[in-house]
């Protein structure tokens, strides 16, 4: 045998054995076979959107922002928004957190969203073109332009419906526009998102309240289906002795009035009652708007607060005082509020009965009181309808509900997910014969999918490396839990050269079933399965 190298240089001719070992089908030795089975990553499990995070991070790693967006949009059409406002439950669960620090998933999500904003080409011809098909397109009305409504509109539009959104306020966006403080979500991001949706052919009509300016029955007559994504934007105001004063407002209303410039200036001493995100947002906003002193009263301990720690920390930084284990008892003052009286409560867990301690009453000076102790669903004004847990109206055909209106106050991500689920439900009604493919809308998990455990992973392959400056570097820190991201480790460590080099498929003719690939796989996507009798 003469071996020529690339310069045409030949090794000395020596007799060599003639039969290549490839004749030897060592796959027959095997009693275990490595197989690839995708699993759910911990970040995806904890994400309200069930977002397939490792998949798009893998695209970011290669700098393929376009591909990353095309993965993202099946799960979350508004990464620029969630990148700003989501509480990043994913990062709390990130497997990398056990090695050094969780991957900064939220930052990357935001970057994908901003990439989309920069690269979106607004088409001016689109509405004209669409007219030709208009007759064939089923029409859908969505009440409410919050995250749930927008998300449902986006997906239905992608699937081929003509969507009209009705918003009661003068500006679209729902809670995104009137609830979330601007320091958390810059309004130009929201505006860009709305512009893109409109350019895609979605019609947004503001200043139209369903049930007042237009009746639900009219909508049902004119549209093939109606979605009520009207949020939960009415604060519940409990009856407290002496509360018949004008300087008491719900947190949601307070935030809305600030965003709509109805409240120009906040001053004096503000007291906020409640421990949820709305309470903390309102307290923080009051302080930033110029209140002299803002005190937040929560009836349980800091640990029990439903508000996310990001919010609490932001409020602390802004200078909000927190008083824990304190319960509002009485509002003191006649025409004008002067003081509030509160009592101490014994530390207790959420769900437990509150035990108020006698003779612990104390007074706080107060010029304005903000109540954030719960919100009323906007569905209450459609009292003739009742909805199943999935949001299907049980006694009104083709009417659906989604978002906070259905579930009670939750996060923006929850609302977007609810909108996505509703879009799939509506699609089933609009196109009963059509098989909705998952290419453009991800369906939700059924809960039986295998989840990646830490022991499936191989963190030692990821040696700790210093600072990460670019998104691509940061994406490289992701273990890729549960997916095959073509890292090539199975190929590199196979002693039998039984992993193909193109897409890393197992060559069953030669695989001896040692399991090194399974053990070394850093994402946990490979597992061993017993060979049925007879070997390979």
């Amino acid at each position, binding site marked *: *045998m003469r*071996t020529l*190298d*690339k310069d045409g*240089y030949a*090794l*000395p001719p*020596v007799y*060599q*054995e*003639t*039969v*290549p*070992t*490839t*004749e*030897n*089908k*060592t796959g027959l*030795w*095997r009693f275990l076979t490595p197989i690839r089975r995708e699993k759910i990553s911990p970040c995806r499990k904890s994400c309200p959107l069930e977002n397939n995070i490792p998949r798009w991070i893998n695209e970011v790693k290669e700098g393929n922002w376009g591909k990353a967006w095309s993965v993202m949009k099946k799960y979350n059409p508004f990464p620029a928004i969630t990148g700003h406002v989501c509480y990043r439950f994913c990062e709390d669960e990130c497997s990398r957190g056990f090695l050094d620090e969780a991957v900064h998933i939220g930052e990357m999500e935001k970057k994908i969203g901003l990439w989309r904003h920069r690269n979106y080409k607004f088409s001016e011809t689109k509405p004209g073109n669409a007219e030709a098909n208009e007759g064939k397109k089923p029409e859908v009305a969505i009440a409410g332009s919050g995250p749930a409504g927008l998300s449902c509109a986006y997906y239905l539009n992608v699937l081929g419906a003509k969507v009209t959104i009705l918003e009661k306020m003068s500006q679209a966006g729902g809670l995104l526009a009137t609830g979330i403080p601007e320091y958390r979500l810059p309004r130009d991001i929201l505006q860009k998102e709305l512009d893109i949706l409109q350019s895609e052919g979605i019609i947004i009509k503001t200043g139209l309240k369903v049930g007042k300016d237009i009746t639900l029955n009219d909508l049902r007559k004119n549209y093939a289906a109606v979605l009520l994504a009207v949020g939960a934007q009415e604060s519940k105001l409990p009856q407290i002795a002496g509360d018949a004063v004008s300087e008491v407002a719900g947190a949601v209303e307070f935030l809305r009035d600030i965003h709509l410039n109805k409240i120009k200036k906040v001053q004096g001493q503000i007291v906020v009652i409640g421990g949820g995100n709305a309470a903390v947002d309102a307290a923080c906003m009051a302080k930033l708007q110029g209140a002299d002193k803002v005190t937040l009263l929560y009836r349980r301990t800091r640990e029990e607060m439903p508000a996310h720690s990001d919010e609490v920390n932001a409020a602390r930084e802004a200078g909000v005082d927190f008083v824990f284990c304190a319960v509002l008892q009485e509002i003191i003052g006649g025409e004008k509020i002067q003081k509030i009286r509160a009592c101490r409560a014994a530390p207790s867990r959420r769900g437990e009965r509150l035990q108020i301690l006698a003779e612990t009453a104390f007074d706080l000076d107060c010029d304005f009181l903000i109540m954030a102790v719960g919100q009323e669903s906007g569905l209450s004004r459609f009292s003739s309808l009742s909805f199943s847990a999935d949001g299907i109206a049980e006694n009104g055909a083709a009417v659906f509900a989604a978002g906070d209106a259905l579930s009670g106050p939750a996060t923006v991500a929850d609302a977007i997910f609810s909108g996505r689920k509703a879009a799939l439900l509506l699609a089933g009604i609009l196109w009963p014969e059509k098989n909705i493919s998952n290419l453009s809308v991800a369906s939700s998990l059924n809960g039986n999918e295998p989840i990646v455990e830490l022991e499936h992973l191989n963190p*030692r*392959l*990821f*040696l*700790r490396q210093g600072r990460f400056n670019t998104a691509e570097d940061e994406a490289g820190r992701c273990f890729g839990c549960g997916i095959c991201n073509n*890292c*090539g*480790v199975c*190929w*590199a*460590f*196979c*002693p*039998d*050269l*039984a992993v193909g*080099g193109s897409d890393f498929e197992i*060559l069953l*003719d*030669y695989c*001896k*079933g*040692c*399991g*090194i690939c*399974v*053990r*070394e796989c*850093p994402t946990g996507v490979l597992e*061993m399965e017993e060979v049925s009798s007879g070997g390979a």
Partner: protein
Amino acid sequence: MINTLVGDFSREEFMLSGHNACSGCGPAIAMRFIMKVAASGAVVVIPASCWSIISGVVPLRSLKTVVLHCPFPAAAATGGGIKKGLEAVGDSRTQVIVLAGDGGTFDIGLQGISGAAERNEDIIFICYDNEAYMNTGTQKSSATPYGSYSATTPAPKVKSDPKKDIMEIVAAHRVPYAATATIAFPGDLSQKIQRALETKGFRFIHILTPCPEGWGSPADITVKLSRLAVLTRLFPLYEIKNGAEYKLNFLPEDYLPVNEYLKPQKRFASLDKLQIEHIQESVENHWKELCCKTGTRK
């Protein structure tokens, strides 16, 4: 090129599937990477060892290059002779690579290595170390570590002497290049073979290759054991240039106790706490020594 998490490697293979290595063989992984880097334009000399089986028994062959099987003690001499012969006919380009096991290096082949190193023969001598005569049934070699079971040191009379420090023996010959490597770090392994190819004179590479059959470990943890050997500092990755310039190639961020490495292996099953402490102590002493030589403060 294939870019993997553990390094970038050429797509081209110089080794074939279907070789007769056991399931989960460490030496087979080492051989594959050596071939990837060095096989093109090289003559390979293999004395009796697992590698002689893996490279193919008559009439099989698994290596896409010229292979010469030679007697057990004569690997370095055969390699040196081939190189001299090639030079005599005017071929100075062909690299001669000797691939020997720990038996053919630490015991039976030692005089040959010493001679070739002393004459500074222009060959690369690569030793895969699975720490016993695994091919013939796990007999003890002088590479077998303290406390290990073998067919000739059965429990409870496990090996009572430490492993021979082959790197110091080779370094004492003042050879141009010597290095340790292991299969869990294929990038480092490939780099060292590349460096050896670029150096002239006697070059020596010592590769730790776990053996599931002989070590009594599950087949799937072969690579993991190799990694643990480095992370516990039991097998440090380093290079020696000209017998004097030491360089550590991998500083583990946090050291693992040796027990992590010993526990999964049945050959160490009979060790008691004191013996394990003794191993830990000798690992630390060796590491300190090495840090002194490399000027590492750790």
